[in-house]
């Protein structure tokens, strides 16, 4: 493949187009990519596929710590595990610059609406890696009066990484899986959150309730969590 590998004396008389291109007037522009393109400077692909490949190859993660799992998440970003090796290691402080949110920890009632807001602030397309048992079901705190039983109650999740907390290797595997799926153009079904639909659905609809319901500002009713019926 590479022209540099070949000894100078065994240079064939006929040059391929590819080799000719690599010996331009200014070889500063040579690159592995240019080499790989072969005889043509053009590539032919579907734009969608190209974009998916781009998205999967360079993911900006949201710097988003909640609980214990965020310590392991930091370890995943940091030395030794170094998530950046896989093209997914730039923690962004602002949700507006992030593609992926890793949800690392227990979500409680007070935090759930805030997390929803952070998620809403991320630009499309956005992906969610839910990290740890707490984001799957509430984990060891599932019985708690204040604990939301899984991230999926609040935002849709693409990948679940189980563990309490998952090892950095597990998180890397989860992120790599997500990259693979994104590159292949697969997406997760979006789950419908109970709090979005339910608006005092368990009350009997009489006049008084209707009247009171008119006063409710839908915008502010961000989260009404029904503890009894949740899984």
């Amino acid at each position, binding site marked *: 493949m590479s022209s540099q590998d070949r000894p100078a004396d065994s240079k064939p008389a006929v040059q391929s187009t590819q080799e000719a291109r690599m010996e331009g007037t200014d070889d500063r522009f040579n690159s592995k990519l240019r080499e790989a393109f072969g005889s043509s400077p053009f590539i032919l692909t579907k734009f969608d596929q190209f974009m998916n490949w781009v998205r999967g190859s360079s993911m900006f993660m949201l710097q988003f710590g909640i609980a214990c799992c965020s310590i392991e998440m930091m*370890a995943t970003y940091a030395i*030794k595990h170094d998530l950046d090796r896989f093209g997914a290691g730039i923690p962004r402080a602002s949700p507006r610059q992030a593609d992926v949110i890793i949800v690392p920890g227990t979500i409680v*009632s007070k935090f759930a609406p*805030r997390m929803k807001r952070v998620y809403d602030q991320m630009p499309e397309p956005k992906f969610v890696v839910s990290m740890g048992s707490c984001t799957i079901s509430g984990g060891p*705190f599932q019985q708690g009066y204040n604990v939301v039983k899984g991230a999926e109650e609040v935002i849709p999740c693409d990948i679940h990484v189980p563990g309490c907390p998952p090892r950095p290797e597990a998180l890397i595997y989860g992120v790599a899986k997500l990259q693979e799926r994104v590159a292949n153009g697969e997406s997760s079904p979006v789950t419908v959150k109970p709090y979005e639909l339910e608006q005092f659905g368990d009350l009997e609809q009489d006049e008084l309730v209707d009247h009171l319901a008119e006063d409710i500002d839908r915008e*502010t*009713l961000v989260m009404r969590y029904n503890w009894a019926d949740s899984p």
Partner: protein
Amino acid sequence: MSLEDPRDTEALEEELVGVTNEGVDYDALEDLLGEHVIGRESHLNAEAFVIRPDEVQEVLFTLRDQAGFDHLSNLSAQEYEDRYESVYHLKKYNDPTQEVTVVVPTTKRDPRSQSAEPVYRTADWHEREAYDLIGIEYDDHPDLRRILLPETWQGHPMGLDYDQDQPQVVSFENHANPLEEDHQDAESDTMFINIGPHHPATHGVLHLKTVLDGEQVADVDPDIGYLHRCEEQMAQSSKYRKEIMPYPDRWDYSSAGILNEWSYARAAEDLADLEVPEYAQVIRTMAAELSRMAGHMLAVGTFALDVYGDFTAIFQYAFRDREKILNLLEDLTGQRLMFNYLRLGGVAWDLPEPREEYFEKLRDFLDELPQTVEEYHSLLSSNEIFQIRCVDTGVLEPDVAKSYGATGPIARGSGIDYDLRRDDPYGYYPELDWDVITEDGSDNYARVLVRLQEVEQSARIIEQCVDLLAEWPEEDREIQSNVPRTLRPEEDAEIYRAVEAAKGELGIYMRSDGTDSPARFKIRSPCFSNLQTLPELSEGEYIPDMVASLGSLDIILGEVDR
């Protein structure tokens, strides 16, 4: 500033009531309080005086000023079938083995009690928590509102008649919107700014309601509870013997799990009167110090990240060294972060085989450590930019720190010589040779220095433990004493026990009701009290200094909110 009067402690030293060579003379204290005492109880850690709910301040002032109890360690509130109780655990910074407990019962119908806030500033948050979770109201409290749960929450979840299945409405409206109310009012030129709960510098999910005057902080109100995951409820619904132990790992999750486990182990062992074999104590001590080192590494690394955005050098260096410690702990416990290694009456298993190899690994790590710490000093503490950011910022005066119940590196950075490992000895610490580090700077810089030096002291302790363990006779390696399968401590036994965790005094209050799980389990979190000092550290300072102060407090939100 502190609300308490400046006291001349040295002059008072002579005439403190109730101080004897054999510990606290509770009869003298009872005489001192006179007719305020309406009853007396015996808790396992100290005697308790029952007082009337409208005389709290008077009693606490007396105990503080005339008997020298200057540390309100904890407030445990609980509901009985017939009454509410606020239990104030008092200690002395000079000698934490001198303890006294003040029990304040209130009626069920009208749970009102006088606030202790004028006596100890730290009572502010503790009483808010008691109000939030139990439902006791405190008269004279400056700001009695919910602290952990959302303001719209209905009911008090740790009360007896709370129905956990009732739906709760949590909306955005109870949080100030930074975009709408930019100015506090039209006249002033202060600006309101929300920091958090999602913010890289808050070390988790902390929300700071900050009012700025120009670039200076005029007012800061920490809003916590974004990680209140019902740790106390979890413990109360689990059994003593094995079910509670995994939870402490998740309080202070900065890999300081062993220290947290030890706090529960110590309290439960004293409650159920269990022995711990000496060999297990040495292993505990070693594992705990490894945990402490990992916790301090994380603190230093993230502090550098806060102060000058140093993601590349210090942060990565700290994580490199932390990984080494985590590998050692993983070899020992089988887990990277949530160790679940201690058991009541000992530890889960012996050191990994082959032992020699493990000791070799530990010694290799300890041999490299002085050089590593030197590296930190040259990168961090002798860095001029770092010094400019940290010296004389976030100053916490010692008497203010005491009033807020600050402990751990925060207190020691303010020159308070308070370390439970030495002052209230447990484990194998009394047999070992090590020093308590204090710095007089009272600023952010002093706190970092304390942490870095404590890493060295921990290394000293581990080194001695390794030597002891290596020479321990094989037939004597008892890792657990004989503990009954089901523990049922005596009915109505109450205990408050604390250990020195990475962040300070981590205490557990437990009351047993004769069953195999505690009737009340209260966690005294060091971070909770330490975080309370943040307004003192940062008001009047520049906003970047507030971020530095917050970083130097080294809070872990899992432990603040529990």
